[in-house]
């Protein structure tokens, strides 16, 4: 039993131990140690990717050189070596382990064998010692007979069963045991041999599987594949060039080039054209400097046309640190460059556009300024011109006219405000005791005021400029003057004279030749005043023109009123002007028997004061006596309160200045022409007085003139056209109202037509306005006719046959048609009758269909038959009826009928305003479709 167990144990050992010690898949485990996936799996992963290896051309010799000589190459090699050594070591370790285990097994087996042999020998000895005498004597035959037989039978177990306890310790038994052991030994040896074979096989396998070269090449291949995978579709060229810039390696080269075309050659040898040399030089530069660089180079070569490449060049160093070549990478950026250039162009255009815009704005601004300046100049020149010549020559005439100081003041301020280019407040105060009307030389006074005001505005940058008017007593006036400025001796004489003789009419006694003309003129002109001479008194009115400007330094005041003198050269440069104004003003004032003085504080402002005597008539004057005043004043008079005492013109923004001026002018014209009588507002309103026009219910007499006047308004106030248009609308409204009031309800169409007649000769703006209304009525009218009668169709055709056929077809389709034979007749027919459809032959004598259509369309657009008339005149045909040029029509559908001649192309038909065309010969079907389309 023990024996059986032992043998079983041995057998078990063989089966169980071996696999546990030597796992079947050693190869894979080895692989895992190096973190490498199975090559098979790699291939799976890249299975879908087709890698075209073609584009690579490599000079392997050079590659070897590179790896041998460059630092990168050597480090790479070192790494690979290390890797390989590590793997080698691991493999040998494994092999050693295996060998160890095998030799241990062998030792075990040998030990066992020894044991068995020992045992056997011992038993034999024992057997020989104990049994031999017996066996020889007794049963020799038996032994020899039995043992071979058993041996022959081979099956040991069977025999063993036969061995009984009874046979134990017999010779036979031991023999059998020995045989059995021997067999076991043999088996063991056999196993050993198998193991050894296996070992050999494994060793071979290991050698085969984990050979470092193979593994490394696999790694390389994977890396290579990966690079291919990434690079093959990239628009990238990679290359290596040696010291002489000859290609040693290139990837993704131009497809039409072969390896031999590139390797060993320089760029210049390969390509020709612009950019090639540049790139070569760039590479050389990199080579020389030893620093990597990028550049964008545009190539223009025969090989691949115009292309832009972004090129990156990097020097390659040997171990010794010297450059042995360059690595070069080029990327095709043609599209990007193009886009970029386009963008740049667009940006440039935008910039130019902006510049233009600014320029334009500037021009507009300048134009505005110029116009403003012109306006100012117009006012100024008038006011300066005459005194200049007059004063200069010394024979100036003074005219005595009645005027209203408030109005003059207001107008001066208003004019100044209109041409104001600064944000300043202009104001005027008139004290209550200033008479409503005085007598004096209003023109001169106005000139003086304007001059002073414009001066004040010129030297004032913020704050306000204003005029104060108040009455002073004669003495006060003189005292004031004495206090203010040093006077010349002649001035003093004047003062004395005035102090004693208040009526200025006697001034000429003191001022001989200077004043005498004044008086004589006064009497000559003063035809109206002469009735009131007896009741005249004199009033001294002081006028302060003040500002919050830069002021005048005290030292400059004495020279202020001298001719051609300004405060300083700086001022001349800065503010311009001749310096003549003040001198003239002063002379003028003095001529009129007054004086002009100034008080000023530098940086705070100046006040120019002049005091003048005026005659005042006690008897109330009628307004019809003011006819000697200028027109402008007359305008003012109509809308001004005679006792107004305060005027203010608030600063406006620059942009609105112009239009506000325009509106004021519009207002003036309007009020004037319409005969709008003054409303009793204490402040003159500058808002548009449209409500007044509407409220003026009984304006029937003025209506006609009103219509005529409108264009004048819109012209005179071009910039405020918006407002003038409003006026026109109002006009229409008032007309409408007027018409309705009179109970002519049914005449609305009449009225529009009449208006159209009027308006036809006026500005286009207005015309459009009314044309819209005209159209509406005509559409309305045509709708009426449409609802009551059949559609009217006009056939324009010269061929009698075609007329017959078409007419007959139309008859069957239930339509009657009018027929004319050429274009000119068609135009006439359309003028006289409104048609719903025109079928127009294209080729016709006298006037063809295209021309006729054009004329009809031009009428529809302009509402005038002028073009048609002209065309007919040219053809020597009878003119159109004038009476029949009724309201403009809606667009008549005109269908061309063409015989497909070359001159009758569809494009031409459409270009001339036809709506569609029907090719000849006309059929029922075509005609029906056409009618359905245009008459439904």
């Amino acid at each position, binding site marked *: 039993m023990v024996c059986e167990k032992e043998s079983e144990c041995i057998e078990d050992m063989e089966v169980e131990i071996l696999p546990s010690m030597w796992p079947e898949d050693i190869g894979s485990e080895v692989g895992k140690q190096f973190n490498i996936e199975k090559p098979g799996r790699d291939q799976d992963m890249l299975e879908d990717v087709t890698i075209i290896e073609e584009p690579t051309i490599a000079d392997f010799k050079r590659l070897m050189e590179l790896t041998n000589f460059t630092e990168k190459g050597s480090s790479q090699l070192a790494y690979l070596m290390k890797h390989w050594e590590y793997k080698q070591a691991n493999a040998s370790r494994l092999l050693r382990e295996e060998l160890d285990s095998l030799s241990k097994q062998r030792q075990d087996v040998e030990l066992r064998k020894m044991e068995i042999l020992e045992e056997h020998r011992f038993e034999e000895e024992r057997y020989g010692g104990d049994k031999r005498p017996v066996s020889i004597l007794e049963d020799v035959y038996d032994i020899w007979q039995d043992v071979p037989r058993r041996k022959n039978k081979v099956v040991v177990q069977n025999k063993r069963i036969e061995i009984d306890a009874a046979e134990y310790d017999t010779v036979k038994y031991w023999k059998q045991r020995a045989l059995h052991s021997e067999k076991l030994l043999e088996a063991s040896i056999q196993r050993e041999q198998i193991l050894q074979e296996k070992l050999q096989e494994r060793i071979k396998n290991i050698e085969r599987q984990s050979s470092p070269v193979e593994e490394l090449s696999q790694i390389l291949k994977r890396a290579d594949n990966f690079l291919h995978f990434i690079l093959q579709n990239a628009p990238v060229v990679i290359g290596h060039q040696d010291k002489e810039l000859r290609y040693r390696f290139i990837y993704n080269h131009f497809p039409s080039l072969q390896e031999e075309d590139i390797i060993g050659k320089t760029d210049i040898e390969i390509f020709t054209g612009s950019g090639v040399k540049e790139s070569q030089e760039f590479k050389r530069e990199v080579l020389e400097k030893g620093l990597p660089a990028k550049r964008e180079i545009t190539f223009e070569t025969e090989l691949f046309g115009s292309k832009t490449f972004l090129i990156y060049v990097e020097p390659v160093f040997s171990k010794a640190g010297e450059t042995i070549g360059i690595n070069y990478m080029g990327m095709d950026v043609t599209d990007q460059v193009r886009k970029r250039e386009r963008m740049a162009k667009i940006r440039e255009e935008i910039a130019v556009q902006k510049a233009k815009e600014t320029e334009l704005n500037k021009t507009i601004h300048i134009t505005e300024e110029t116009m403003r300046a012109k306006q100012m100049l117009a006012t100024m020149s008038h006011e300066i011109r005459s005194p200049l010549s007059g004063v200069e020559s010394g024979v100036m005439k003074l005219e005595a006219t009645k005027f209203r100081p408030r109005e003059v003041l207001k107008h001066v301020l208003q004019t100044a405000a209109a041409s104001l280019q600064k944000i300043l407040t202009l104001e005027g105060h008139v004290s209550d005791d200033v008479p409503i009307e005085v007598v004096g030389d209003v023109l001169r006074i106005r000139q003086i005021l304007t001059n002073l005001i414009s001066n004040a505005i010129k030297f004032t940058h913020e704050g306000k400029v204003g005029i104060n008017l108040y009455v002073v007593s004669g003495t006060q006036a003189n005292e004031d003057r004495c206090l203010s400025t040093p006077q010349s001796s002649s001035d003093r004489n004047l003062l004395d004279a005035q102090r004693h003789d208040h009526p200025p009419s006697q001034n000429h006694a003191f001022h001989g030749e200077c004043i005498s003309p004044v008086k004589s003129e006064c009497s000559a002109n003063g035809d109206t005043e002469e009735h009131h001479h007896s009741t005249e008194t004199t009033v001294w009115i002081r006028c302060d023109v003040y500002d919050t400007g830069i002021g005048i330094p005290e030292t400059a005041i004495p020279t202020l009123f001298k001719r051609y003198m300004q405060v300083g050269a700086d001022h001349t440069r800065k503010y311009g002007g001749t310096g003549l104004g003040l001198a003239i003003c002063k002379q003028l004032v003095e001529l009129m028997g007054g004086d002009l003085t100034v008080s000023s504080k530098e940086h705070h402002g100046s006040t120019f004061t002049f005091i003048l005597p005026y005659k005042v008539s006690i008897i109330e004057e009628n307004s019809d006596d003011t006819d000697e005043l200028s027109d402008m004043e007359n305008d003012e008079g109509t809308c001004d309160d005679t006792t107004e005492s305060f005027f203010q013109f608030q600063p406006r923004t620059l942009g609105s200045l112009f239009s506000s001026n325009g509106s004021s002018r519009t207002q003036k014209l309007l009020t004037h022409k319409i005969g709008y009588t003054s409303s009793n507002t204490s402040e003159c309103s500058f808002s548009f007085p449209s409500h007044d026009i509407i409220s003026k219910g009984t304006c029937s007499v003025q209506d006609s003139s009103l219509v005529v006047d409108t264009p004048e308004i819109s012209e005179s106030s071009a910039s405020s056209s918006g407002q003038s248009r409003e006026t026109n609308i109002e006009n229409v409204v008032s007309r409408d109202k007027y018409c309705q009031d009179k109970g002519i309800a049914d005449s609305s169409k009449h009225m529009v037509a009449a208006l159209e007649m009027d308006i036809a000769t006026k500005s286009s703006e207005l015309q459009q306005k009314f044309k819209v209304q005209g159209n509406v009525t005509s559409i309305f009218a045509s709708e009426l006719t449409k609802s009551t009668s059949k559609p009217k169709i006009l056939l324009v055709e*010269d*061929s*009698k*046959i*075609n007329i*017959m*056929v078409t007419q*007959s*077809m139309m*008859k*069957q389709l239930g339509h009657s048609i009018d027929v004319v034979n050429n274009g000119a007749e068609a135009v006439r027919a359309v003028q006289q009758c409104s048609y719903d459809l025109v079928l127009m*032959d294209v*080729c016709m*004598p006298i006037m063809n269909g295209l021309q006729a259509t054009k004329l009809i369309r031009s009428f529809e657009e302009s509402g005038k038959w002028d073009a048609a008339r002209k065309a007919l005149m040219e053809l020597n045909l009878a003119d159109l009826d004038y009476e029949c040029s009724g309201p403009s029509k809606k667009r008549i559908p005109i269908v061309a009928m063409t*015989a497909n*001649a*070359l001159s009758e192309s569809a494009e031409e038909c459409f270009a001339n305003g036809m709506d569609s065309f029907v090719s*000849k*010969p*006309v*059929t*029922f079907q075509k005609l029906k479709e056409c009618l359905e389309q245009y008459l439904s």
Partner: protein
Amino acid sequence: MLGLGSDLLWADMNRLLRLLFHEGVLDEHFLQLHHLQDESSPNFVSEVINMYFHESEKLLNNLRSLLIHTHTHDYNKMGIHLNQLIGSSSSIGAKRLTTLCLAFRAATHHSNRPGCLRALEMLEHEYCYLKNKLHELFHIEQQRALAAAARYPLHNNNQ
């Protein structure tokens, strides 16, 4: 007999028409003319055709004189005449004549005098052919109408 004759004449007319259609002398527009004929205009077709021949003859004469008798060949004017002829011919369905006119017009566009002359001859020939055939047709038609209108008293009684 006369009644029977009407049917025979009808057949004759159809045969002639078939021939003209087959030859491409006429097209469906000619039939359309017949559709336009009704009680209110019983002679519409013959009226139109008569007018057509009347007009066409004038146009052909004009064309001939323009092409042969004048020294300055006004191709432009010829083109206008031809356009008219094309318009009317196509309206009555004179297909072959229309086609010839188109060819003629093309020749005038190129100021091709020999081409024009050839085209004019063919046009005149075609015109005569069409005129004869349509005359024949109308003649049969007239007879047919007469035959159809003729009724024996017996016949009338039976009906």
